[in-house]
């Protein structure tokens, strides 16, 4: 699909018809999505184009010391459709209220956000061919891998054009691509006679990278074999090495829930200076990391994304704001007004939901813990947790926990047999003075990797609670 000329962008086409209804904001989205679904290695269904173009209007109405915020979304671009959406928003604004000390819509100045790499040019230009090539490479990579096979899968690519404008003169936008891969890799047979088991792959990326599939499929196949051989862990408190994919299931929800202006409004946000983590841990929110799934040049209100320090050597530093919560506390937006975030993950279309304040990419600074092997040696006795079924973190209490899909026992500083079953749980973030995953960090690895909306090295935590047979 070709990028729209500035005047043709979805938001601008709607915004041009909202004269006289200031202050207003329009978020527009134009999307093409293509999918291939697999049963085994056979193509079950091709889907696409899935064509979606829509917009979300927000109107802001001052009433005494409150603001009435009216939101409505639509995919009807006719004059009648825009008028109906605006009327809905106006009516809703009369009944809604938000405490505001000072509210400012971002202006057009400096709102481009600069270049952040979020668009795969090849995929944008040739989505169908790129997807076909990727799926062919995926199927080929499983040849000769038995007893590991592909039991099911889906590859979904999305091309999105975002446009944002408001009555303060903002006109901005960007294109981005996203790739979602969901696979079940099954291991069956083998001398142990164990029942077949699966390793689940859930990858979010900005690019299709078929050249990397050979190594990745080999790794997934090995993991599937280890799931099949795995036995439940012992019950007890033990040292746990937690790699980025597991942290990705915990930290965005917890930090995105507590380190925000909306949490401050509810009086549950931490206060600057509180020591909530080990001195070994420094955590940023960074929306400008190249190719990260939650990166973008500007947030969904058009404010440029930046890097913000949440924990500095374990001490609370900053919290995150969108335009509304920033206005409540007489400060500036940190570029964290996002649409379509659910539990730390971002929906493939976002215009339906109004912005809320959320984290973008949670980045843990690499430490002195060294390589994976050095972290394992430091643990001496414990487990390496490779995958939790669903850690279902509670953004308020910080509690997380779930079933161990795959882990490895650490004995005498070396990886030993695989673990499958039982649970791992704890508190990710606790009140000052109480133990948590953050305070019990004993070492932070030296090399970071992106996993969904986390950029982190593996970390060694001592102890966490493991329950097994």
């Amino acid at each position, binding site marked *: 699909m070709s990028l729209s000329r500035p005047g043709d962008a979805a938001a601008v086409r709607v915004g041009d018809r909202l004269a006289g209804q200031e202050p207003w904001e329009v978020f527009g989205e134009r999307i093409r999505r293509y999918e291939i679904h697999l049963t085994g290695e056979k193509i079950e269904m*091709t889907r696409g184009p899935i064509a979606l173009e829509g917009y979300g209007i927000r109107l802001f109405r001052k009433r005494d010391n409150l603001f009435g915020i009216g939101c409505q979304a639509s995919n009807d671009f006719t004059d009648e459709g825009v008028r109906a959406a605006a009327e809905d928003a106006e009516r809703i604004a009369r009944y809604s209220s938000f405490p505001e000390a000072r509210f400012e819509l971002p202006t057009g100045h400096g709102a481009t956000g600069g270049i952040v790499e979020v668009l795969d040019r090849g995929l944008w230009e040739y989505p169908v061919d790129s997807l076909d090539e990727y799926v062919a490479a995926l199927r080929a990579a499983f040849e000769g891998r038995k007893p590991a096979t592909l039991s099911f899968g889906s590859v979904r690519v999305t091309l999105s054009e975002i446009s944002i404008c408001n009555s303060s003169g903002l006109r901005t936008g960007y294109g981005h691509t996203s790739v979602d891969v969901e696979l079940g890799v099954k291991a069956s047979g083998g001398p142990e006679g164990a029942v077949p088991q699966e390793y689940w792959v859930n990858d979010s990326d900005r690019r299709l990278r078929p050249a990397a599939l050979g190594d990745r499929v080999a790794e997934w196949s090995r993991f599937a074999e280890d799931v099949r051989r795995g036995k439940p862990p012992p019950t007890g408190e033990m040292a746990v090495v937690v790699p980025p994919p597991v942290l990705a299931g915990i930290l965005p929800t917890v930090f995105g829930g507590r380190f925000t202006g909306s949490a401050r409004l509810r009086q*549950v946000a931490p206060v600057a200076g509180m020591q909530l983590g080990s001195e070994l841990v420094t955590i940023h929110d960074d929306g400008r990391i190249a190719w990260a799934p939650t990166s973008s040049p500007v947030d969904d209100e058009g404010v440029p994304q930046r890097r913000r320090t949440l924990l500095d050597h374990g001490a609370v530093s900053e919290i995150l704001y969108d335009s509304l919560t920033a206005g409540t506390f007489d400060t500036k937006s940190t570029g964290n007004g996002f649409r379509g975030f659910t539990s730390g993950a971002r929906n493939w279309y976002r215009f339906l939901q109004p912005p809320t304040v959320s984290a973008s990419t949670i980045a843990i600074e690499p430490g002195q813990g060294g390589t994976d092997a050095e972290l394992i040696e430091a643990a001496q006795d414990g487990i390496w947790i490779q995958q939790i*079924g*669903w850690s279902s973190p509670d953004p308020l*209490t910080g509690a997380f926990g779930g079933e161990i899909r795959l882990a490895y026992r650490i004995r005498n500083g070396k990886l030993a047999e695989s673990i*499958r079953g039982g*649970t791992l749980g704890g508190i990710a973030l606790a009140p000052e003075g109480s133990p948590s995953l953050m305070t019990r960090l004993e070492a932070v690895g030296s090399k970071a990797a992106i996993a969904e909306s986390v950029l982190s090295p593996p970390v060694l935590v001592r102890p966490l609670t493991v329950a097994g047979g």
Partner: protein
Amino acid sequence: MGELSDAESHLYHTVARLAQRGPFVEVLAQAARGLSVHYDGHSTSFHAPALLRGAVFRAWTRTGWTEASVSGLDPESLRFAEGAVERVLTHRPAHDSPPGVSSTARLEKMTATPRPIRDMGEQEMLSLARDAFSWTAGIPEIRETEVQISWRDDERMYLNSAGARCYQGICRVRGGAFAVAMENGRVESDRFIHGGVGGREILEGLTPEAVRKAAESARDMLHARAPPAGKLTVLLAPSVTGYFAHESFGHGAEADQFVRDRSYLKPLQGQTVGPEILTIVDNGAYPGAWSEIYCDDEGHPAQRTVLVDRGRFTGALHDRDTAAALGALPTGNTRRSDFLSRSFVRMTNTYVEPGESSFEELVEEARNGVLLDSGTAGLEDPQGGQIQIKARMGHLIENGTVTDLVSSMALSGQILDFLGSIRGVSGPKDFALDTGSCGKGRTDFLPNSAGGPYLLATAVVGRA
């Protein structure tokens, strides 16, 4: 009939034209509307579901199904989707008919209620929300109360080239309160949610007693002990029993997993897998339940399917493809999240049927263990036959008595081991269904309900 009536003629003619190029074509068109209010004492926000309408066309080709979706029901939008499907049918013309039974049903049904919720304006919704907010007053530890009241009308029209025409309009109504307690930096919460298919009468379930009970529970959680860990006797409260039914025999019995050869249940059809006191059902036709539907998204009527009949695994949930592959009939369980999403075999209202024990008898039978209450999340592993269920809170059971409150827990284990350990199911007065949502994998969320009475078994439990 509502917003889809204007588009019906265009949809019909588009299907008819595409049917000239292939053996079978269908379309599902959707339009939704509704309103929700969220009130927390600081702010009030209203949200109206988007004025979003569109359609997905599906056609059978030489290499299987192909689909194209478009957001819009105007002739230009429909031509765009028609063109996309037509190109695939030209390049990959079908040589045979699609598998399974094409619906020929003719159905038109909307949620019947004497008190339609759409008559309830913003002011009335806000008044109820403010009332519910006030019901937690007087509990000093409650730092925050959030009230949400919402309704959504989901209109769907299904047409196919075999002559089916199914229109359904389903109105889901839900009200709930979420209370947050805080003391010395510790934060705990609990919630009460009540909902179903119907009208304003559903909101009568949002009572002062229920909301205050949730707030008191959040307060009490501030002093809850850490839960025990290890293999324990577990007594599941109705919402947790629902997660068990949903994750074990719900997902495991979705027959697309059989076709993919990734269900632990596939070789167990017809066999005894649990005690005689265990019966599990999926019922899309359950009147008023949160996931009631009148027909599925392939035009097959909703029905009651018994998955486990007194301990014996008897049934599976089917769409047309899986029914054809396994020699069965469609069960009315083909569902799409929306017109942008593909269809899958999905559950509706899935539950354990009541037994005959009383709650007190089950506690006495347990002797020592843990009562898991307030289910919050679950996960299935159809291939490996494992489940994970998370409960927000629970109580210790000591010497046949319910004692101290404990904080959130995760339950995990092999489903067949769990089934073998079931030794009690309580009676009809404890039965409850929840108002949840469920995904297939990590996407495609749609309204779903699960429930049951109390259930006594053994499982691994740990802090979570």
